[in-house]
């Protein structure tokens, strides 16, 4: 457990100083998603010391937490109360922080069944590029006062402001999770099988297909799960470590630095990808991990209505293919200037011409 500390004033001062001196800052926290060098900036603003849970009332299903708090630490606190975040953020060996997870818009295995970052963020406190501390959204479930600038932070990669605190919507953990292991001839069959269960209102909470096997997690009441008969179940304990290793990219599939790793987001219902190499699918095919040497990954994926990003190395700077739509670019540039007119934050990240992970 780390020591909780409120560094709001220190961070504000650093931002004001950088701005006043015409400088810029690369915002880092746990360092699990990017290096400072990849973000640009004359100096580094490390928010990892700004950590701790600010408020947590389990009956309100809301937690307010400082951005530098490790995801693993937050998860542990929620677990004690039988609650969780529906978006199942990777904890990346304890290094992933709440701020980085919001800023990169990342989500774990539960994403299609429970929701993503935009579905859990209720409010934020942030410092904009003018050095002003601002509060948007709040701690209640429904709030439509003003523009929804808290959800806008999800996936904004620190380019609109430095997150201080984030209020997150929680859900109760299901009474029980079970994992089925089912042999399937192809990822398309696995996706169809999973979707059929969803059409029957089965409580699917994660799916993964790799090497002819479909791993399927179902979460619900004891009695409802006992009625299911989908074949052999994965031993209790092993299932937990499988999903943990999947979300943290620690399965053997991910451990092969010889070849590039790509993260590919796709619409539902896309068949096999015409790419040579190894593929691991999640989210009933809406998320695929590709290991291989193909040089046309972006084009192939973009033609299928999705987008791809390199995940090994400094993936934060790896530009994802965006629509080369001038209006989109104008809106991105102007919004960024509306929060950070002097471009103090993460100057190497470019939303105008090339956009990163979201």
């Amino acid at each position, binding site marked *: 457990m780390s020591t909780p500390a409120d560094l709001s004033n220190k961070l504000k001062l650093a931002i004001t100083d950088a701005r006043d001196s015409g400088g810029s800052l690369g915002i880092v926290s746990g360092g699990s998603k990017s290096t400072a060098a990849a973000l640009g900036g004359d100096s580094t603003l490390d928010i990892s010391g700004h950590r701790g849970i600010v408020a947590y009332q389990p009956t309100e299903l809301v937690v307010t937490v400082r951005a530098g708090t490790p995801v693993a630490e937050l998860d542990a606190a929620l677990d004690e109360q039988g609650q969780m975040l529906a978006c199942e953020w990777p904890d990346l060996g304890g290094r992933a922080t709440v701020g980085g997870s919001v800023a990169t818009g990342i989500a774990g295995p539960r994403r299609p069944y429970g929701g993503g970052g935009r579905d859990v963020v209720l409010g934020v406190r942030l410092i904009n590029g003018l050095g002003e501390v601002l509060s948007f959204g*709040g701690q209640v479930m429904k709030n*439509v006062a003003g523009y929804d600038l808290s*959800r806008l932070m999800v996936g904004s990669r620190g380019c609109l402001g430095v997150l201080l605190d984030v209020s997150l919507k929680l859900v109760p953990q299901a009474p029980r999770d079970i994992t089925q292991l089912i042999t399937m001839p192809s990822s398309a069959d696995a996706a169809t099988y999973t979707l059929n269960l969803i059409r029957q209102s089965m409580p699917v909470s994660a799916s993964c297909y790799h090497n002819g096997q479909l791993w399927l997690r179902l979460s619900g009441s004891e*009695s409802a799960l006992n*009625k299911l008969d989908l074949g052999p179940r994965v031993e209790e304990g092993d299932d937990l470590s499988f999903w943990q290793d999947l979300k943290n990219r620690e399965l053997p599939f991910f451990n092969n630095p010889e070849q590039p790793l790509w993260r590919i987001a796709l619409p539902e219902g896309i068949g096999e990808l015409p790419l040579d190499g190894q593929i691991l699918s999640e989210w009933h095919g809406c998320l695929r991990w590709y290991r291989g040497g193909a040089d046309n990954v972006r084009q192939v994926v973009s033609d299928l209505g999705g987008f791809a990003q390199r995940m090994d190395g400094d993936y934060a700077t790896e530009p994802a293919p965006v629509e080369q739509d001038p209006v989109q670019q104008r809106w991105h540039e102007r919004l960024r200037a509306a*929060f950070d007119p002097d471009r103090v934050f993460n100057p190497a990240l470019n*939303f105008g011409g090339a956009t990163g992970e*979201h």
Partner: protein
Amino acid sequence: MQYDFLSHDPALDDPLPAVDRARLLTQLRAYVPADTIVDETEAMRPFECDGLTVYRCLPLVVVLPHTVEQAQSVLRICHAEGVPVVTRGAGTGLSAGALPCANGVLLVLTRLNRILEIDNERRLARVEPGVRNIAISEAVAAFDLYYAPDPSSQLACSIGGNIGENAGGVHCLKYGLTVNNVLALKVLTIEGELLELGGPGLESPGFDLVSLLIGSEGMLGVVVEITVKLLVRPPSTQTMMVSFDDVAAAADTVANIISAGVIPAGLEMMDNLTICAVEEFIAVGYPTDAAALLLVEMDGEEQDVLEQLNQCAEIARETGATAIHVAESEAERARLWRGRKSAFPALARLKPDYYCIDGTIPRSAIAEVLAYIKDAGDRAGFQVANVFHAGDGNLHPLIIFDSNVEGIIPRVEDLAGLIMEKCVAVGGTITGEHGVGREKINQMAAQFGDAEIAQFMRVKEALDPQKLLNPGKNIPTLRRCQEYRSIMSSRAEPAAAGASGGLS
């Protein structure tokens, strides 16, 4: 009767551009068909207000395009000529968000009402903004799918308006608001350019502009196409009616259900005044002797539903419920909900007018705030009914009054202001799902500081530099905020003050 409490004030609002109406009409006629243009005063009357009828204003002209291209032409003209544009759907909004601008065009999108695509496999529907909320669920019912957000006005309200306000409903506790159920938007910028945001997948590169547009009250762009997520209809749904002889016990039951780890599909509360009004109106079988009533709905797998319903009943009993009844048939279940959805019209029969407030608060504060509302209402001499989304902490206090009584409107607005400020004081918000519109423009100063307001304005100016889209709504000027705060702080004993706290 027209009230100018919140009408455009050159001292407190941004100046409205002067517009040459004849020139505007000539331009419009050159680019859009004559049958889309309504410019006679009497014909424009039906468009002078939305669901909050106390605020009225005639626009310069109403345009009802048949196509996206026509809407685009209207925006291009308005942008080139510097003419304000207010976009409107069915006009069921309750915050004067679609109140026309006296110097502007009212762009009504109800004719863009086609369901463009139903993708049964991927559980999506692509629709135009004028499609009514309920029409989506009706169109996909054959596939056992539905669109989850269900505002009480869902028979009439359009999906475009739902986007503008980030509409909720009785089932958003479990299934989320509009923002959690929309995947992609096509938006016209004020310049008339078409922008595609989001996509059929779960992720898109760049900023989450879909989330930014949802709930932006038509101030950043004009939404012309929406891709919504559809859900699979659950195999089992059960509704339970729980009575209490004490409002606080009902409120505590809500908090206890949630803290037990149960998320009902719906968790609604109504007080005795509402119960009696509904019973007199349509007689659905509510117990008129109860001080408060909870409607608890569970859906999902049959076994789970039964277990959770029993768990809730147990909690309710322990917290002091006086009677518990589970709907015995689908017909009875529908009847119990019809009562809930008819609550506003039922209350409207008590006095000629009602004023609905929309604050959201932490669940743990429900009992405290309900007591405050009762007390403040008594002191101000008004009956206030409560029927609301208790599971979300989203209150809908209804101040019941007769607008024919001289000088009553400022008193109503005063009481409403007090209730909204109380919501903010306990850690909540002035609006959970109805939007700020023009109605709550002053209370934004209670919710936000100047720095936040200025940030909102920079966002607005980034996407609509001339501030032509829905001017005067949602975000107050800093001048208005300062004026409001100074009036608030000068009020010694708020509820007893005879003078209006309003700005004029």
